[in-house]
């Protein structure tokens, strides 16, 4: 028995959501008195994996894993599960986790909870895990009844503690000779913005209240001053004022940053569904009856065109005083 945590590298570093998963998995491993094995593909500084709690690090080796293909990656992780005798497998609930965790679950006949937001309660063989359901209106407690268990962790649900010590990585050669994926990659288009919206700690988002794409300069500037990613409501993406990958909400990206600024967004439930997990929500709206104020921690009633420039100045001033 052991706990396995699948982790990833992005921009030369172990992803934050992966470190959260390692933290989470290591706590389960400690409770069960077993190893917390982090599994990773690719080269980077892996010291953080140990600091986040991994007691063993395996580096997956196979040329077929160079580019993401769910079929290869699932097969490779299955081999590690069997070599390590892992019974609990943890993923981050990101793009990879959403594809690979359920595939692995089907292969292993493992019960899976996707998008967990809390530490599991473990008693004997019984595992219960909480996740948000119905657009964040409720939390459901799941019991996983199978012998092997998979949990994918909603990003930004836990603060990361890095108080473990670094562990040397060992290579794990996956054997994928018998598998040939029929999927051919023709083109990869990486979003060029520095901040990946789902991983961002701070997000500045704006809606139809901004009147037109030509007015986004101040939104981008506020985001830049704060070091935040930009997002938008759905109509804004539908009207092509902003790119589709910025659209947050029920049909867009679900995010849960530490701070979410909603500027000129009314606060429709479908929008809230993707953002109401944010730790602190600030709403700026000219209509004091805007529904978003009911889901906000801080609000300013007023014209965004007047307030945002003042906020930019205030942030600059704040930065000057705190550096």
């Amino acid at each position: 028995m052991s706990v396995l945590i699948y982790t990833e590298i992005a921009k030369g570093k172990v992803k934050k959501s992966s470190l959260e998963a390692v933290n989470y998995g290591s706590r389960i491993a400690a409770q069960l008195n077993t190893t917390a094995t982090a599994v990773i593909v690719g080269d980077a500084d892996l010291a953080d994996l140990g600091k986040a709690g991994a007691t063993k690090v395996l580096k997956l080796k196979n040329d077929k894993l160079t580019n993401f293909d769910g079929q290869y990656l699932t097969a490779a992780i299955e081999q590690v599960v069997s070599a390590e005798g892992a019974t609990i497998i943890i993923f981050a609930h990101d793009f990879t986790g959403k594809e690979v965790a359920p595939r692995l679950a089907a292969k292993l006949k493992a019960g899976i909870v996707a998008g967990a937001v809390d530490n599991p309660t473990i008693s004997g063989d019984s595992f219960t895990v909480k996740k948000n359901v119905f657009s964040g209106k409720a939390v459901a407690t799941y019991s996983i009844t199978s012998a092997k268990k998979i949990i994918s962790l909603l990003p930004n649900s836990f603060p990361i503690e890095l108080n473990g010590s670094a562990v040397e990585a060992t290579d794990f050669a996956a054997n994928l000779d018998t598998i040939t994926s029929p999927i051919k990659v023709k083109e990869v288009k990486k979003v060029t913005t520095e901040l990946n919206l789902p991983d961002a700690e701070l997000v500045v988002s704006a809606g139809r209240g901004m009147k037109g794409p030509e007015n986004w300069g101040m939104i981008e500037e506020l985001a830049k001053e704060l070091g935040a990613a930009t997002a938008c409501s759905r109509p804004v993406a539908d009207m092509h004022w902003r790119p589709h990958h910025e659209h947050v909400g029920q049909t867009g990206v679900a995010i849960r940053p530490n701070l979410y600024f909603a500027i000129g967004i009314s606060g429709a439930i479908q929008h809230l569904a993707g953002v109401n997990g944010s730790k602190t929500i600030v709403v700026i709206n000219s209509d004091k009856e805007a529904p978003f104020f009911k889901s906000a921690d801080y609000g300013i009633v007023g014209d965004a065109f007047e307030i945002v420039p003042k906020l930019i100045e205030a942030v600059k001033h704040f930065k000057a005083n705190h550096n």
Partner: protein
Amino acid sequence: MKILVCISNVPDTTTKISFTNGDTTFNTAGVQFIINPYDEWYALVRALELKEAQGGNVTIIHVGAADSEATIRKGLAIGADDAVRIDAEPNDAFAVAELIAAYAKDKGFDLIMAGKETISYNGSMVGAMLSELLNLPFVSMATKLEITNNIATIEHDIDGGTEVVECPLPMVISANKGMAEARIPNMRGIMAARSKPLEIVAASASDKLTSITGFTLSKGRTDCKFIDASTPEKLIELLHTEAKAI
């Protein structure tokens, strides 16, 4: 081309949520159910467009009890040719995938489509599981889909960007926003839906690996602190000292 579209039945997002049986059961009384938007707007509509352009047949499949038939009829009204309901409570993703896989395995579908996730439980699991159970290639979060000479060209979301891939049919795809535009059923469609075939299939054996033991309603944010529009710098101060967000 034979296309199978997996349809789930979800409460409309604006619905007020409550629970019964000591907070263990979702209370469906008075709840407006809709087809999961990813299944309807993107998967089903794109399937219909492909059929209209190239010929073929679009079947919708749903795992659920008899009370979800209104949802299935709506799928037929939008234009699916026929429908299948597997008669079982859909309370575990793996069990749902097993039931759909058992039905689909010898029917010769060229393309099986699911939504990216249900908006109620946000599992994002059934499509991926189906591909494993049926041993078919899988592309998740597709935002564009073209099919020529039995080869699918798919644009899909990946970590930090998008990717264009090619894959020969048959395969499984999960649909994300962008694949198609929503269609509203017209009167003719609604009339025609009444007489389209809806096959009810008894549930085969399936494995339930998880169960929900209870629900709690989330506490909303109760008091918004208002800052006067003339002093927005106060907000920045509070975000630092009080919320510790910057």
